[in-house]
């Protein structure tokens, strides 16, 4: 692999370098809102068909086909709602924040197309509370869009009315789970709902609702403008399009890199991100944030980064957050920090997750404090086995990954903690 030939494929990030791409003038000058104009001249069914044909899949982690999701909205129940999940919180992920900060109109345009396609006249952006700057950028963009007649009554002279409400989160990772997010908008604790019924029929205010991620909506205008076939030319057959990968941790050039699905992890880590910081060796990386089911070691560097390949290699693509750990990092400490995160963010609704995450933290702390015992490895895995599949939502299922993954791949590090009576690492 030669680093000189590496180039990003910029679709949703193409305006990031335009000096005023985040403002309406700059957005329009670069073709902005032409997709919405085109969409408003199409029938809603035609739009859903294009999105279906494009193979666009949700970028929030699950990869569900977007067009299919839109087609689930019943036509005879109104109002229906379109909701953007902008509650980015997956550790290691920072793509939605950047999309809102640097191209907020692109999100509004993608949402407007989606709203028209499902017959919704009211859109919500549930924006993470801590994203102060991203939210200001969104509010500025929304104000411009209202001013220009792109939002409000009779948008772009089409006869269609469309409103946008930006509703702020208040500090709860669980609200990234779509039914917890809907609970939060309804003024309740962000705790997941029992499903079925699904949001497609009983979503926000018990009405038909589509919830999509920021990056998913950001793809929509480009598909409408350029067509489904153009989109399918990027990526793999089952994972079409491009993806923003978030590179962080021990790399020389952390950042977001947009590349076609199927790009090898090695190109991202060693190429775009410049390799492991300080010329150290790679110990591990997450292919999809803290909620990847398995850390990858150097042997997985040639895994193609698409949903199918990452799953075949034993983990999950998730949000595409690649966190890199150098050879001198303590994986027990990393597992402890991630597990503390899940314990803190567990909403408390179901016992396995609420209690299990607490006990995993407790046991991991024993290793760091020099009180770890050989049998604790089995105890933690036993706790983990009682969380997975017995939790109300995916937070519980994913909360075990740091423990199950590190005790499998780095069991020797746990034993070093036992032998030394404490942490043998500096970082």
């Amino acid at each position, binding site marked *: 692999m030669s680093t000189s030939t590496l180039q990003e494929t910029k679709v949703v990030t193409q305006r990031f370098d335009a000096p005023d791409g985040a403002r309406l003038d700059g957005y329009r000058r670069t073709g902005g809102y032409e997709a919405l104009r085109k969409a408003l001249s199409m029938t809603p069914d035609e739009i859903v068909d294009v999105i279906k044909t494009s193979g666009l899949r949700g970028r929030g982690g699950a990869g569900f086909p977007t067009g299919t999701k839109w087609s689930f909205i019943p036509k005879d129940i109104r*109002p229906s709602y379109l909701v953007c999940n902008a509650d*980015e*919180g*997956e*550790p*290691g*992920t*920072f793509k939605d*924040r950047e999309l809102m*900060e640097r191209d907020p109109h692109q999100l509004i345009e993608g949402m407007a197309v989606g709203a028209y396609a499902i017959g919704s006249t*009211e859109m919500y952006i549930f924006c*993470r*509370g*801590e*994203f*102060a*700057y991203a*939210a*200001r950028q969104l*509010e500025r963009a*929304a*104000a411009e869009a*209202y001013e220009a007649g792109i*939002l409000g009554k009779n948008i772009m002279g089409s006869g269609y009315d469309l409103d*946008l*409400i*930006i*509703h*702020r*989160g*208040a*500090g*709860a*990772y669980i609200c990234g789970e779509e039914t917890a997010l809907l609970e*939060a*908008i*309804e*003024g*309740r*604790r962000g705790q997941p709902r029992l499903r079925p019924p699904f949001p497609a029929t009983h979503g926000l*205010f018990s009405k038909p609702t589509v919830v999509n991620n920021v990056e998913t909506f950001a793809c929509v205008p480009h598909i409408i403008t350029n067509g489904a076939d153009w989109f399918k030319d990027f990526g793999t057959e089952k994972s079409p399009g491009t993806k923003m990968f*978030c590179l*962080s*941790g*021990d790399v020389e050039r*952390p*950042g977001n890199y947009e590349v076609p699905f199927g790009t090898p992890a090695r190109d991202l880590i060693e190429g775009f991100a410049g390799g492991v910081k300080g010329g150290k060796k790679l110990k591990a990386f997450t292919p999809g944030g*803290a909620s990847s089911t398995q850390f990858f070691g150097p042997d997985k560097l040639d895994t193609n980064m698409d949903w199918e390949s990452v799953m075949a290699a034993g983990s999950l693509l998730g949000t595409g*957050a690649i*966190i890199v*750990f*150098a050879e001198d*990092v303590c994986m027990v*400490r*990393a597992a402890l*920090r991630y597990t503390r*995160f899940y314990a*803190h*963010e567990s909403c408390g609704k179901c016992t396995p997750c609420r209690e299990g995450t607490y006990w995993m933290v407790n046991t991991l702390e024993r290793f760091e404090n020099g009180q770890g015992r050989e049998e604790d490895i089995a105890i933690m895995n036993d706790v983990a086995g009682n969380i997975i599949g017995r939790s109300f939502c995916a937070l519980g299922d994913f909360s075990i990954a740091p423990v199950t993954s590190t005790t499998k791949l780095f069991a020797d590090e746990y034993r070093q903690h036992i032998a030394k009576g404490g942490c043998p690492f500096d*970082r």
Partner: protein
Amino acid sequence: MTDIQGRWMDTPLMGKAHDHAAAPPLSERFHAEARKLTARYPEGQSRSALLPMLYLAQAEQGYVSATAMRVIGDLLGLTRAQVGAVATFYTMFKRDPQGRWLVSVCTHPSCALAGGQQLKERLEQELGISCGETSGDVSLEEVECLCACDGAPVFSVNYENYERMSVDDAVGLVNRLRAGEVPPPGARGEVPEEFGPVNHRLSGAEAPR
């Protein structure tokens, strides 16, 4: 949360012992904006304004006081338990009065590998407080991933990010806040608003709709 006479009690859930009655009364402006926020949501869905109203109250009082929870409950037709359950669920609603500047430090692995943990410990030392406490104008907290990991180590002042700063520079910045100065622009080039205005904006009262 209330004793047998229905008085608010200071419990660990309600924050540390302090006089909730001493919180400034919610203003006319609060009530006007609360009405406006409720009208944003569909008819019969006024409860959607609960999180926004908690932010509005926090903007005026520097935290969500027991009094504010009661007022908001009355406005929305919710019980104190319903309001309290929500106010205590979300980390951004504070149950103790906050300083002008809330400093939030991320200690997740991406940040920890770049010095986030040392930064947290140094700030606790310098300020002489633990995370979750306030010293003068500065409140300090440890937070979960702020999703700006390319800028590690990340800390924020009233939710405005400061990125890739050395531990010494970050401590210097916080010391200037203690001395009454206004923070420099953050990583996105904008200066953080004070705790009150930031919460006012979080309520959505300044959004176009």
